């Protein structure tokens, strides 16, 4: 009987994978539901004997089985999009059934955990340190240093918390990993627990990811004996972007408002329920099992550039011909990603801007396509690698509107704890409206109040309003408690810098 492999990843489902799977089953095939290869423009992608066909619809079934389908892409593993990658964290993508313990064990699963548990905890921490692994959630903090801090912190109770709140637009690697290779995440958490002396873990998943939540719960049930004495539980977010910030996330698990906590104390010392806690991103923890393989740490350290070691699962999204998951060693240029790998825009129009690193990341201009993907180079260019999402816009994008959206998003998602963010984001959106409307603005009711001595009583010119916007950005950048308020000025300032013509007349 013909075995047909079709992904059951949420994205494949959204593109109609279930109907295609049903049609193959009706045609008498055995259908295996596997993880997604990450070639999203080809989903639903059908695999028969290693050969790929996509994007498939139920109508294509007969031709695919007859070997005459025009949707044939040849051997999937040889497709340039896959062949050009270096997949470590996503080594199983497309190749295994997500909830099959047999598939997992047959592809090297549990080897890292078994080896780690034979080692003293401190040696495990040392291997993570030596691999150069940095946090993939956004800040790029060295994972080994965080683990060591928790391991050395006094306390009988410690926690491992996995940050699976993945709220950044343009990112989906956490989702793909949780849905496609959930045991790898659990194994990484169990290794971390052994290394730091924790016995309990939580995975905080955003409520927008029902499929990932279901897969994780099923995987925890299947792997509980393997993970023991470590116990893991899934907690579901409630639609707040800011709960991806680690201290807000901890408050949320504790059953509180998702307000950001002031640091210190570091969560590593006083985290969940006041206990020492590792908070790591899904991709950080899922990289741990292969790093703990014999020789895995030095392999990881040998990849990448300067202080950005190993591989990054880059997520190519927005207006692109070929979107999807592209895991590669650090150092690849933005131009290569956008032009060669993604094939330019889906609309066929010229690329205007690329936002890297989510809603808090800068908009990069095609003039900056030479930038190599690494934390320090991006930081030096006032840009953000973040969680590795890149969102491409064609020349129909209105960058003034995108700058306004950055403020609007910050206003909608602010936790409200600090003034620069809570008030500043609202003021920023108003200010951009005023600038774009082009007319000089008279004083508003607050500015006319007698106690507002410093507010100008005459109208503001455009130059003055732009000055005000700069002031506001400075204030938010330097005085916000967390990166939501602190980084919102990056997309705003980069849009204004590269595309001033999108901010109305007079510039």
């Amino acid at each position, binding site marked *: 009987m013909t075995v047909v492999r079709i992904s059951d990843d949420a994205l494949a489902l*959204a593109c109609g994978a279930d109907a295609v799977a049903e049609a193959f089953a009706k045609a008498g095939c055995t259908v295996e539901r596997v993880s997604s290869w990450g070639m999203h423009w080809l989903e639903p992608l059908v695999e028969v004997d290693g050969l790929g066909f996509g994007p498939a619809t139920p109508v294509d079934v007969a031709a695919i089985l007859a070997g005459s389908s025009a949707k044939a892409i040849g051997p999937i593993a040889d497709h340039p999009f896959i062949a050009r990658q270096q997949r470590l964290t996503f080594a199983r993508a497309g190749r295994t059934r997500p909830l099959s313990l047999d598939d997992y064990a047959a592809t090297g699963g549990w080897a890292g955990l078994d080896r780690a548990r034979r080692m003293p905890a401190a040696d495990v921490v040392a291997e993570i340190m030596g691999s150069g692994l940095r946090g993939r959630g956004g800040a790029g903090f060295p994972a080994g240093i965080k683990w060591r801090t928790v391991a050395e912190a006094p306390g009988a109770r410690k926690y491992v918390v996995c940050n699976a709140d993945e709220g950044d637009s343009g990112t989906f690697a956490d989702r793909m990993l949780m849905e496609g290779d959930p045991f790898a995440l659990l194994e990484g958490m169990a290794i971390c627990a052994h290394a730091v002396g924790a016995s309990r873990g939580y995975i905080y998943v955003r409520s927008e*990811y029902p499929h990932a939540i279901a897969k994780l719960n099923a995987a925890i049930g299947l792997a509980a004996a393997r993970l023991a004495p470590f116990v893991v539980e899934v907690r579901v977010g409630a639609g707040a972007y800011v709960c991806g910030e680690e201290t807000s996330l901890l408050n949320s698990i504790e059953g509180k408002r998702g307000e950001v906590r002031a640091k210190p104390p570091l969560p590593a010392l006083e985290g969940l329920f006041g206990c020492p806690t590792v908070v790591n991103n899904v991709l950080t923890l899922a990289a741990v099992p292969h790093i703990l393989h014999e020789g895995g740490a030095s392999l990881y350290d040998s990849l990448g550039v300067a202080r950005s070691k190993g591989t990054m699962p880059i997520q190519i999204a927005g207006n692109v011909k070929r979107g999807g998951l592209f895991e590669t060693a650090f150092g690849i240029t933005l131009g290569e990603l956008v032009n060669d790998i993604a094939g330019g825009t889906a609309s066929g129009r010229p690329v205007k801007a690329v936002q890297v690193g989510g809603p808090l990341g800068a908009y990069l201009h095609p003039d900056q396509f030479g930038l190599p993907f690494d934390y320090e180079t991006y930081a030096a260019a006032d840009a953000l690698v973040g969680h590795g999402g890149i*969102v491409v816009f064609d020349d129909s994008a209105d960058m003034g509107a995108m700058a306004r959206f950055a403020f609007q998003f910050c206003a909608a998602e602010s936790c409200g704890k600090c003034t620069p963010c809570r008030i500043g984001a609202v003021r920023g959106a108003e200010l951009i409206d005023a600038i774009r409307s082009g007319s000089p603005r008279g004083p508003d009711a607050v500015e006319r109040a007698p106690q507002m001595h410093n507010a100008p009583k005459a109208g503001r010119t455009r130059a003055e309003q732009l000055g005000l916007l700069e002031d506001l950005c400075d204030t938010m950048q330097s005085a916000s408690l967390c990166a939501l308020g602190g980084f919102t000025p990056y997309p705003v300032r980069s849009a204004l810098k590269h595309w001033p013509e999108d901010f109305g007349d007079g510039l």
Partner: protein
Amino acid sequence: MTTGPRLDEILAAHAGRDGALLPILHDVQAAFGCVDAGAEAEVAKALNLSRAEVHGVVSFYHDFTPSPDPRPEVQICRAEACQARGVEALVLAAEAAAGSRVRLKTVYCLGLCSVGPSARVGDTLHARLDEAALVALVRGA
């Protein structure tokens, strides 16, 4: 009325759990379509919290609503990647199709950013939406 035996069951199911408030609120929202003042008071009593504390949490999160809205809901992603793929041009048509019968909710990212514009109805996801597909989705909701 959102109190009664069903709420008691939810509270009992989470008894003794660390940080039980969010899981309880999710269950209450799913069972009653909202977390209203009556439910807040019961939850507060069960967890030995003040009503203000519970209300603070309920009102913080987008997923919890203070009163039920029985209309079907269609969530449309309007975050950056879906904007880059043209979602804003579909919104007026979706609103017209929704009228007052369907509740349209803006969400920021469903993790389908390479195949947007995307939408969610219940736990079913939809991608590669054009105007006709989105309008059909709203009409069928």
